[in-house]
C-alpha cells in the first residue's frame, strides 16, 4: 500500500476483554515496530520485528501483551485481559531496512472502560 495502515482506528473495550490490533506495513519494508503513546507522553517501545530474525520483545510491559508478524507482512498486537492503564494510542511503523527512516501509521486509539 501507499503507507502504513492500522486497524481499527479506534477501539473501545471493557476491562478484562482481549483486543487485537492490526498493522499493514509498506510493501517491501523488512522492519516493523510497535510503540505505545499514552496521552501527553512520549513513545514507548513495545516490540520490533526484522525479517526472519527473532523479534525484540524487550519493551512489552507484561505477559498480557504479545505480537506476531507473518514474514515481512501483516503484524498483530494482542492485549489480553485489558486493563484501564492499557488505554493509549498504539502506533505501528515500518522501515525498508534497520536504520532507515520510519513510516508511521495513524495509530489505534484504545480505550479500556
Amino acid at each position: 500500500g501507499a503507507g502504513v495502515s492500522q486497524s481499527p482506528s479506534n477501539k473501545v473495550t471493557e476491562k478484562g476483554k482481549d483486543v487485537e490490533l492490526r498493522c499493514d506495513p509498506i510493501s517491501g519494508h523488512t522492519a516493523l515496530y510497535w510503540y505505545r503513546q499514552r496521552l501527553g507522553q512520549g513513545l514507548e517501545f513495545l516490540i520490533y520485528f526484522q525479517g526472519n530474525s527473532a523479534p525484540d520483545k524487550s519493551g512489552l510491559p507484561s505477559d498480557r501483551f504479545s505480537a506476531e508478524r507473518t514474514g515481512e507482512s501483516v503484524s498483530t498486537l494482542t492485549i489480553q485481559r485489558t486493563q484501564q492503564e492499557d488505554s493509549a494510542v498504539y502506533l505501528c511503523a515500518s522501515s525498508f531496512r534497520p536504520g532507515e527512516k520510519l513510516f508511521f501509521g495513524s495509530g489505534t486509539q484504545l480505550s479500556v472502560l
Partner: protein
Amino acid sequence: AQSVAQPEDQVNVAEGNPLTVKCTYSVSGNPYLFWYVQYPNRGLQFLLKYITGDNLVKGSYGFEAEFNKSQTSFHLKKPSALVSDSALYFCAVRPLNYGGSQGNLIFGKGTKLSVKP
C-alpha cells in the same frame, strides 16, 4: 542504560525568531540520530537523520540539526520559525550496539513547540 533526553516539555517562540529544540542521548557506540514531528491530529513524520559525515544535517521544512559528539547532543534548529511549525517533536536514537537488536529506535518523551504570531 540507553536513553534519550528532551529536557524541555515545551518551547515557545515568536514567529520569525530562531528556534532550538534540545536533545541529548546516552548510548553505547556511534548512534544513528533522528528527529520526527507529530502535527496535531496527524501521524508522526520523519524530519531528518544523522548517520555519519557532516555534523550539520538538513531536513524537511527548513529544519536542521547539529550533531555534537563531545556533548552527546543532537539539537533541532530552524533559523526562522513559522506558526505552522507548532507541533510535537521527538528525538530518537538507534544505538548500533544495542543488545541483540540492530534496528530498534529509542524515542525521547517529546517537546511541544508553540510558535506565536
